[in-house]
């Protein structure tokens, strides 16, 4: 497909041809190697859909059941494949339905290009039917946005959109195209964008920063790494692993970074943050050097900043200059693409092992195992736990699956207990915490990595926010596996109500429909499990299924996720119960 698209691109670059703006959009997408996009039609974008019809052998359009679903599918696609996800919608309500997904992609740095139709240029500002200032609405949540009002702008702007979306720190770009620009004809030729004078995607590496970093690394007695999604976005998994192994530094991850190195790697010490592991959270406040690599010190990771790693020297490897010193003041900021900076720092650091320091992590792992993990993974009580479901999924997928999680307790359990052998495997809404993300994101993930098993882990609440995407699954036959961990509650909010609002369960109890019947209504194989003895065989059956499969697991209603750093508390005040 990619080579075919390149051939088309070449042909297009060579000689201009007279086409409509709508056809130019399609040809531009093909020139950018796009072979799939997600969207929903409507009046202001019909000329482009008409061209999609003509080009359907080259460019597959997936009709989601809601535009929000289109954005999350494009995100899921982008996150597993490392390619740019594309979503499309009509003007007005179609466009505003994209906003949540765009905001999600912005905060989680996901490369995505969204194309919206707009009323014709002469009607702009007249409150025409389905006119919305979508560029204005999306400005704060896009990396870049632009309104095209003339067909001749299309190739250059789409080329810029793709360049911006995927270069440097990736992000979403919105292109709004007035209807007249879709209809007008012009001489089309395409040239990929290779640079923009006002935009510097990758800062130059400063050797002295590398030297200062290496000095601190070599001198440290109790160093610790916290890595984030930057390692994955920078395709720096190899360099990162080499760095960790040479320096022998215990490495912990944020939920966006997990899977960059295998879960079972001996130096992988687990997750930091609000529901992270006990060891790395507590030891953040005991280490003498904190190496932050491709992460952004989100408040869900740091807890209270006033007490965060105050004793430690901090070195921050980061591509985005605006992130250095944004939340946590650092001793050394190493700007640059981590693939480059990690490769360059590697020969400057001494081979080392920190055995007794690593032992500090293991000691705390044992405490966490006794107080939390044992009950989650090997429960002795009657009710099913979310953790045991994850354990079985690990077992049945041999840790090779892409796990797509929604938002809530099940998300934290999925991130804590899912095990990964390969990168780009944990797809979740980290920064925005968007309920409804997982089902459509799983569709995109499966299409972006068809050879991989994709399992969505969703709560009964979030599932009902985008449940209509079952229609997309039915229509496209995309074989995603859907697990709803049903506690009949908006579990995470209920947990906070229990712990911090004296159990006043305001509007968190859910009266749920028969989820199995709903899935069956869409002709998706479905099963409900209520007892432990039925769980393993059901998970097996789901994973072995060649088709989409829906599994509802009725779990304990009022379980809580621990460890937990109460919001505003210090990482070292992480609670185990």
């Amino acid at each position: 497909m990619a080579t075919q698209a390149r051939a088309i691109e070449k042909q297009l670059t060579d000689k201009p041809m007279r086409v409509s703006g709508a056809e130019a959009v399609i040809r531009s997408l093909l020139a950018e190697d796009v072979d799939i996009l997600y969207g929903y039609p409507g009046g202001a974008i019909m000329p482009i859909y008409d061209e999609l019809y003509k080009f359907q052998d080259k460019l597959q359009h997936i009709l989601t059941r809601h535009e929000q679903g289109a954005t999350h599918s494009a995100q899921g696609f982008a996150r597993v494949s490392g390619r740019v996800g594309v979503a499309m919608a009509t003007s007005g309500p179609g466009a505003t339905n994209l906003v949540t997904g765009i905001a999600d992609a912005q905060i989680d740095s996901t490369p995505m290009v969204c194309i919206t139709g707009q009323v014709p240029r002469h009607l702009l500002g007249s409150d025409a039917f389905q006119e919305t200032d979508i560029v204005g609405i999306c400005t704060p949540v896009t990396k870049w946005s632009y309104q095209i009002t003339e067909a001749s702008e299309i190739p250059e702007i789409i080329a810029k959109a793709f360049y911006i979306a995927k270069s440097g720190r990736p992000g979403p770009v919105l292109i709004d195209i007035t209807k007249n620009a879709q209809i007008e004809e012009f001489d089309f030729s395409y040239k990929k964008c290779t640079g923009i004078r006002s935009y510097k995607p990758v800062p130059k590496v400063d050797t002295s920063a590398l030297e200062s970093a290496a000095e601190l690394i070599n001198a440290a007695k109790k160093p610790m790494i916290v890595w984030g999604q930057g390692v994955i976005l920078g395709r720096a998994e190899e360099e990162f692993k080499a760095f960790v192994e040479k320096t022998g530094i215990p490495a912990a991850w944020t939920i966006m970074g997990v899977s960059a190195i295998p879960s079972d790697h001996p130096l992988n010490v687990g997750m930091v943050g609000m529901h992270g592991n006990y060891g790395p959270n507590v030891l953040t406040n005991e280490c003498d050097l904190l190496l932050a690599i491709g992460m952004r010190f989100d408040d869900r990771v740091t807890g209270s900043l006033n007490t965060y790693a105050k004793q430690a020297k901090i070195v921050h490897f980061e591509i985005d200059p605006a992130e250095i010193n944004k939340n946590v003041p650092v001793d050394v900021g190493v700007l640059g693409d981590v693939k480059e900076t990690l490769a360059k720092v590697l020969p400057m650091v001494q081979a080392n092992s920190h055995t007794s320091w690593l032992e500090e992590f293991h000691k705390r792992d044992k405490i966490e195992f006794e107080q939390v993990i044992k009950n989650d993974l090997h429960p002795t009580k009657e009710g099913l736990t979310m953790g045991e479901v994850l354990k079985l999924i690990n077992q049945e997928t041999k840790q090779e699956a892409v796990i797509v999680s929604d938002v809530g307790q099940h998300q934290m359990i999925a991130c804590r207990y899912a095990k990964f052998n390969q990168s780009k495997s944990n797809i979740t809404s980290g920064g925005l915490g968007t309920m409804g993300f997982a089902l459509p994101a799983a569709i995109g993930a499966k299409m972006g990595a068809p050879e991989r098993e994709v399992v969505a882990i969703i709560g009964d609440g979030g599932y009902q926010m985008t449940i209509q995407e079952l229609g997309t699954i039915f229509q496209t036959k995309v074989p995603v596996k859907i697990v709803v961990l049903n506690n009949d509650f908006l579990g995470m909010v209920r947990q906070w109500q229990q712990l911090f609002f004296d159990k006043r369960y305001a509007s968190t109890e859910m009266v749920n429909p028969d989820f199995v019947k709903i899935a069956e209504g869409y002709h998706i194989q479905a099963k409900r499990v209520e007892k432990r003895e039925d769980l393993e065989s059901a998970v097996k059956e789901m994973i072995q299924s060649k088709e989409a499969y829906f599994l509802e697991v009725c779990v304990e209603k009022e379980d809580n996720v621990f460890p937990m750093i109460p919001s505003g508390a210090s990482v070292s005040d992480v609670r185990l119960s």
Partner: protein
Amino acid sequence: MSEENKTFTISVYTENMVGLLNRVSGIFLKRHINIESLTTSQSEIEGVNRFVIVVNTTEQWVKRIVGQLEKQIDVIRAYYHTDEETIYQESALYKVKSDSLFEQRQVQNIIKDSHAKIVTVSKEFFVIEKTGFRHETEQLYNDLIPYGLMQFVRSGRISVTKEAMQVSSLINGFQPV
């Protein structure tokens, strides 16, 4: 770094694009920081615009804001400066009833003493222009109020820095990869 609120002048060099003002001002809105004044015009470089934005905040915040501004695709470069590092002025226009100019000697003295310029005189009104520091334009405002100020308007701060800002060399050094 000082946690004290101070006046900072932020200079933003940008491409000349529709919607950029929205993107620039949104950065302040998102952080709930009030803009004291904002002007935008063509800069010394052809095709490049310059925003001059005055804010009252801490140095820590102004640094973050400049970081966020620079991150925007169409922003070429952003800087911040203290009052001591810039030469700055504001312009004000005052529309006064013509009667007072002819009938009250005082008014003529006020104009002379303030080094203001009379821009236009008609039968009904005259317009005075004064460029200077905020306290100077404010002084003239207070002085003229008793004589029937019909309209008053003041521009945002315009400023140049004492040090050079290397925007031209940045643009000239650009090469697509």
